[in-house]
């Protein structure tokens, strides 16, 4: 059991290392042309002291958008889900609204938002809409997972609607909400980056498009790498939270 686990850990480590080595080799021998730099070049570029303020400012702007979008999206999604759980008649309408908003391509939302809010408010809003969707869907289905037996028990004990929600439905929804916390991490980043592709004045997304248009290859890869690593770290953190919640709720 434990030996199987350590074996798969070692294999996974080898897999990731092979990926990084392949990245390096393809770049070094120009197997994919000039636009694929070796990993070492990207890392060297990334750690050049002169570039640090550039990346620092861009990352700070983007991560702020991600954080605001994530928090507002999570709260908004949860509040809407609670509303549709408690007030049954509004549920179908909210479901459709959320689905329609989700189906609008973010590039189409962006110009609307730029008019309605501002260019710099657009990244957190798109990010929040994506996150809110995940939380709404997960929480509405999570709030409905309590078993019929438990519901009957609460009914027999004369529990009010409020205490059923608080003591039964919400705890039963926790695992689904914890999954949503994890799954919405990359969505939050995508929203912020796409939002920045439409004329934000700073951020990693802006860096990525301008580097693409101006053939600044190491800059392009560096900005993407920062975004990916940040998303990965946050995802890992929330995976841990999800694991803890699931252990606790078993």
């Amino acid at each position, binding site marked *: 059991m434990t030996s199987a686990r350590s074996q798969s850990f070692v294999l996974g480590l080898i897999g*990731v290392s092979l990926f990084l080595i392949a990245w390096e080799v393809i770049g070094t021998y120009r197997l994919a042309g000039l636009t694929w730099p070796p990993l070492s070049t990207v890392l060297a570029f990334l750690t050049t002291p002169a570039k640090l303020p550039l990346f620092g400012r861009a990352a700070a702007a983007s991560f702020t958008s991600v954080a605001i979008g994530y928090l507002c999206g999570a709260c908004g999604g949860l509040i809407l889900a609670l509303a549709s759980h408690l007030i049954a008649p509004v549920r179908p309408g909210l479901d459709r609204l959320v689905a329609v908003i989700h189906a609008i*391509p973010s590039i*189409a939302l962006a*110009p609307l938002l730029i008019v309605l809010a501002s260019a710099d408010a657009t990244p957190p809003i798109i990010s929040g809409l994506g996150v809110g969707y995940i939380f709404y869907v997960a929480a509405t289905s999570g709030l409905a997972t309590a078993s019929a037996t438990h519901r009957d028990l609460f009914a027999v004990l004369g529990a009010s609607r409020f205490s059923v929600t608080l003591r039964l439905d919400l705890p039963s929804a926790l695992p689904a909400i914890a999954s949503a916390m994890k799954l919405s991490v*990359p969505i939050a*980043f995508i929203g912020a980056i796409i939002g920045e592709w439409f004329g934000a004045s700073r951020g990693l997304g802006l860096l990525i498009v301008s580097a693409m248009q101006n053939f600044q290859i190491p800059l392009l890869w560096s900005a*993407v790498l920062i975004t*990916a690593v940040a998303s990965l770290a946050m995802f890992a953190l929330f995976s841990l939270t999800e694991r803890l919640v699931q252990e606790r709720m078993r």
Partner: protein
Amino acid sequence: MTAVVSISNLLRRYWAVALIVVGWQIWVSAAGLSSIVLPGPLAVATDFAGDPLSYAGPAGLTFLVAIAGLLLGFLLGAGLAILSWSSRILNGLLTPLGLIFTSIPVVTLIPIIARLLGYDVRTVVAIVSLICFFPAFVYVGAGLRALPPGSDDLFRVFGGSQLQRFVRLVLPSAVPNLMLAFRLTAPEAVLAAVVAEFLMGTDGLGYLFRKAAGEFDTERALATSLIATITSVACFGLALAAERRVLRRWT
């Protein structure tokens, strides 16, 4: 009578959407915004109704590109999932990579792919298939391991060979997950295609949108996003119908 019922049904489902559209119209009219800044829904609808066919070409192209990318991505993702199912070592090597790529914003790779492959329709297909590849790999991989209870023992007792087990048990078991991944990814495929077209300026809805926005033709830009939304919803609807159909036969 039935008309009343269906209208009340429609209202029950779409009151919130209707509220937003009506609110938008009232706000635009009341604030007297110029149509360059923000046209109301009526103006957008009028613009679309004036020349609906001019949207058909780009919409068709985006739809086809999205479908092509989706199928290619699924073929590769499912293929790799099967390969990694068949070899414990390969599975061990690939599982964490699959996890890593599902936890990062793959959309940010679009500019990298665009630079690597050049600005071209084929690049859009490649981008869409990259976006679809990871969900297909992860979901099909999980499906290949979710066998019906007791079925594995059954095949052993009846002396089925490894090949029979794979063809008659493992592959069919993965079908529900495959369809689930298909439904979840289909609308994303359209959105990815639109974003790629927008960034690279290759033909399709994304380019139409970019051109309209560049010429401050806001009505046209919004009508284009409406079409993109409808295309994405249509893709979702098709995938959902396919999933329901398959599941009816499969479970």
